């Protein structure tokens, strides 16, 4: 198999990239290609032109300070040994080492696969997404960025330039898949602050609880201010099971996913 013919445009600056993407309706950005190339090969997607942004230095940065600033071209594998434990946990659950060599953070967010690991993780982190377009860079809250399955706030000619978030003091990522690191049947990402045995605040995001990654807001409300003990964990898992409205597909039924979301919440909280 190989992709249908396309024009290949290698760009050398971000402004050149957004310029081409805004002028050509049939163009798509190519970063690592780990989701895009299979879609092209399967002829699920087809573009007149691919704009290769993979060599843009402007999108290749990773800074750890008060907040974490990650460029769109940060490869998954670069986070496998991150000083931020939560990022490490997520990174090692993505695909396999080969996919992680090339797949990018920005690509994962822009593709917005409902089973994608980074969109859920970024929801838990409350990340700010930096979106580049012909008029410059705008910032979009992750809660507004994911609009549906494979749908984002990106408009034509725009691409993800990077993201910014705080590394959570406590975090956990629990994922269930049919085989090791396959697309998640269900997964739960928790980013929390815990003081003196109590959850100060927690953001809880799930894969497999809706047609897209979503925050489990009832679970978050239940956790805020609660003591981090077995009763709270059990109540949160129960609440997650009720809040989840999972889809059924060939990987698993809604009922099964609902149960998995509950178990994932329980295990994630137990690891905080």
């Amino acid at each position: 198999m190989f992709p249908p013919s396309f024009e290949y445009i290698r760009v050398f600056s971000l402004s050149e990239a957004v310029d081409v993407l805004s002028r050509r309706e049939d163009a798509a950005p190519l970063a690592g290609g780990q989701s895009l190339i299979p879609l092209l090969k399967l002829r699920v997607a087809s573009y007149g032109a691919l704009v290769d942004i993979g060599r843009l230095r402007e999108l290749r940065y990773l800074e750890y300070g008060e907040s974490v600033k990650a460029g769109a071209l940060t490869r998954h594998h670069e986070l496998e040994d991150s000083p931020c434990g939560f990022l490490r946990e997520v990174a090692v659950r993505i695909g396999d080492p080969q996919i992680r060599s090339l797949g990018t953070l920005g690509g994962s967010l822009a593709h917005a696969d409902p089973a994608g690991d980074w969109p859920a993780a970024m929801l838990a982190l409350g990340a700010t997404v930096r979106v580049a377009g012909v008029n410059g860079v705008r910032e979009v809250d992750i809660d507004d960025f994911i609009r549906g399955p494979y749908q984002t706030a990106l408009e034509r000619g725009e691409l993800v330039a990077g993201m910014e978030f705080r590394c959570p003091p406590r975090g956990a990522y629990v994922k269930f898949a049919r085989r090791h690191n396959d697309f998640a049947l269900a997964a739960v990402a928790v980013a929390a602050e815990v003081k003196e045995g109590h959850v100060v605040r927690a953001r809880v995001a799930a894969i497999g609880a809706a047609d897209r990654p979503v925050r489990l807001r009832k679970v978050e409300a239940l956790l805020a201010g609660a003591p981090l003990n077995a009763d709270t964990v059990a109540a949160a898992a129960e609440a997650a099971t009720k809040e989840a409205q999972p889809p059924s597909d060939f990987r698993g039924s809604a009922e099964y996913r609902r149960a998995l979301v509950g178990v994932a919440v329980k295990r994630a909280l137990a690891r905080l």
Partner: protein
Amino acid sequence: MRVALRVNGNLHEVDVEPRRLLVHVLRELGYKSVRVGCDTATCGACTVLMDGRPVKSCNVLAVQADGAEIYTVDYSDEVMERIREAFKRRHAAQCGYCTSGMLMTAYHLVKRGVKSEEEIVEGLSGVLCRCTGYQNIIEAVKEAAEL
């Protein structure tokens, strides 16, 4: 488009159509050890090292690899020889189809100083073996990594 690839130390400059995949270009250059397996980025038989990292060459466009240093399983150095010997001793190949992918990922693991069996198992998870089972392969990598 003109693409430069350094494969196992040999420089090649080739004209490729942008939609051509790295695996096909490598095979046409004569590197037939790079297998087309599932062709859907699942099985890992087509794994090569690209600038030091394992990639599935059926899931990379040749134009993306322009300027890259590629190692296929024909590459030889002391570490690779050690891994090959360990694969032989441990009977880590049966039909052999996954072997080139296994050797390349094993090479990456040993080079980066893999420290535990758990890391080996995770590290090999992108290559599927359908006949020997994985245990002998894991044993071989452990031996090569001196674990």
